[in-house]
């Protein structure tokens, strides 16, 4: 078997999230170096605060300030920080119960080594120099042997509260399309289109994914299809492409389902070389390749007579 294809795949998205009243107050507070918790009906103070009591599910909004000093309730030594984590030098992950709080906050603790951490140790917040209203406004925790810091008595009211965060996420993958699609893509590089035939129903699937979606059995017999085909159905696109690779495509244009000769499944492609309002069901087309391309740029009329409806009606 030839080697499967592989390519880097990066999925990256700046999730924009709005904040409720409690989260907004907490994150705005961090920007102003004030730590706010929320009080539950039974008098516990939750830090970080949530909008609903985790036990009773009651809505809670009673903000209360806690101290920027606290106690480590558990920890783990991270000798190899990973991308995106709070510190680039080795650090301890810690759950810290701030003075005045009944629950613990997860963050990084900056200490020289694991021997310098223990459960019960006293720590304080090290603020980030630039703060925007995000959990990363706490740069990390650091050891602290002074007395318990006193809250300022803040009410949680801010003149200019943050109402949202942008939570950027990026994950890196090495994508591999598997055996069947690798064979399809490799054939395309020779400007050939190869499908796979189902051993049970004998239908030829293009592009092949290694399984017959009707019978649920593996396909492996390769069948070359096309290059010519028939337009089974189409639509007229009036929206200009936003993607840079397609900016030169003028609207309106036609996007069609094309049943390649020998295939039992239509694939889709753009129709060119004919005015958009002259494209029709049954139109015979052939692929147009551009230099260096990995798949046909578009399909154009072959000039043959239109296919008879009965020859493609099952493929609609």
């Amino acid at each position, binding site marked *: *078997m030839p080697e*499967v294809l*592989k390519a880097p*795949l990066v*999925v990256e998205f700046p*999730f924009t*999230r709005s904040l409720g009243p409690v*989260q907004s107050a907490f994150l705005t507070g961090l920007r102003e170096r004030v730590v706010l918790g929320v009080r539950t009906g039974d008098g516990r103070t*939750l*830090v*970080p605060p*949530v909008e609903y009591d*985790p*036990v009773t599910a009651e809505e809670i909004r009673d903000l209360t300030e806690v101290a920027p000093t606290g106690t480590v*309730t*558990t*920890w*783990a*030594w*991270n*000798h190899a920080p*990973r*991308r*995106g*984590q709070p510190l680039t030098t080795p650090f301890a*992950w810690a*759950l810290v*119960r701030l003075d005045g709080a009944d*629950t*613990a*906050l*997860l*963050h*990084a603790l900056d200490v020289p080594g694991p021997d310098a951490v223990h*459960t019960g140790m006293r720590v304080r917040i090290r603020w980030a120099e630039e703060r925007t209203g*995000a*959990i*990363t406004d706490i740069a990390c925790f650091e050891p602290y042997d002074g007395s318990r810091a006193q809250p300022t008595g803040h009410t949680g009211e801010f003149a200019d509260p943050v109402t949202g*965060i942008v*939570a950027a*996420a990026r*994950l*890196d*993958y*090495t*994508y*591999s*399309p*598997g*055996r*069947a699609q690798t064979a399809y893509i490799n054939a395309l590089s020779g400007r050939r289109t190869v499908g796979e035939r189902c051993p049970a129903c004998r239908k030829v699937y293009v592009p092949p*994914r*290694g*399984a*017959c*979606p*009707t019978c*649920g*059995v*593996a396909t492996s017999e390769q069948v070359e299809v096309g290059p010519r085909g028939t337009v089974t159905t189409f639509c007229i696109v009036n929206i200009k492409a936003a993607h840079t690779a397609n900016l030169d495509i003028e609207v309106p244009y036609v996007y069609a389902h094309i049943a390649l000769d020998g295939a039992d499944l239509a694939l889709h492609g753009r129709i060119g070389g004919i005015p958009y309002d002259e494209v029709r069901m049954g139109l015979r087309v052939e692929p147009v390749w551009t230099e260096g391309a990995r798949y046909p740029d578009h399909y154009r009329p072959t000039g043959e007579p239109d296919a008879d409806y009965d020859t493609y009606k099952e493929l609609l």
Partner: protein
Amino acid sequence: MTSAPGDRQIAVVAFAQTVHRRSSEELSEVEMLMPVLHEVLDRTGLKTADIDFTCSGSSDYLAGRAFSFTLALDGVGAWPPISESHVEMDGAWALYEAWTKLLTGDADTALVYSYGKSSPGSVRDVLTRQLDPYYVAPLWPDSVALAALQAQALIDAGDTDEPALAAVASRNREAASANPHTQLKGPVAQGDYLVRPLRTGDCPPIGDGAAAVILAAGDRARDLCAHPAWIRGIDHRVEAHGLGVRDLTDSPSTRLAAERAGAFERPVDTAELHAPFTAQEVVLRKALRLGDGVVVNPSGGALAANPIMAAGLIRIGEAAARIHRGESGRALAHATSGPCLQQNLVAVLEGEPR
């Protein structure tokens, strides 16, 4: 199809899984899954068209692609249209959905499958995306780090220590030697700290794999399997999502799910626990009040093979397979999802007296 809800008894009648591997990059998801689907169907003689309901579990974040489960549907013959559903969770929760569907009387048979390929990405990073997006995910705490916080909490509480954790690792991987599907088996060095106090030996292997189960109701189950594994009870519960709100040394959600599933009504002889990290087995044994007489993870557990999204369903499958083989009379299967045992499912399976 029949319509006899109420006292319907549902059983696991067949189970199949892949040989779990570090990477199966030469296969697409459906190519990896299909042999397992065929194997589980072959065990019952059913064809895909005979299945009343199909339910799957998987994750787009592992695949790096939206609606990735739709591609796997080719493997079950989803055309002409079938009755189908999907959970973006471990397949154990897909099994729960299928069980409720069978209970209603809308279906007599169900195919449950799940799969995960961790090899295309970095699973430690991928799993950070399931965390609270406001307070936790921006810090990118990885799955091993969170499990390590739980382990340290247990050590501080005096519930375990590093040698005890090493013994858990060793016992699971020794058991895995007899299981041809496992990825990590036999003596495995505890190794260096990955995130202290967890060493590499305390952590599960990263791997690709799939599993499938067939459920059937009442007499249909007896027709399809000589020794059906009857699901006597099944329940799942979730903890507060804030890690600092929870007592990490305990698992009240597991205990409650077990209670609701009837696990404490009579002792079990076998427990398949979904504990990807050694310290989590300590938490689960305590929550489930498992005595020394209970055989825990005879399959090797998640420390021997942990295909994400399938490892929980595999626990139910392995427990059922022991009943099919006559090696267990009453078994408990547990599945987890989320950081530090956040969500837990417990099923109680029983054979018939022989």
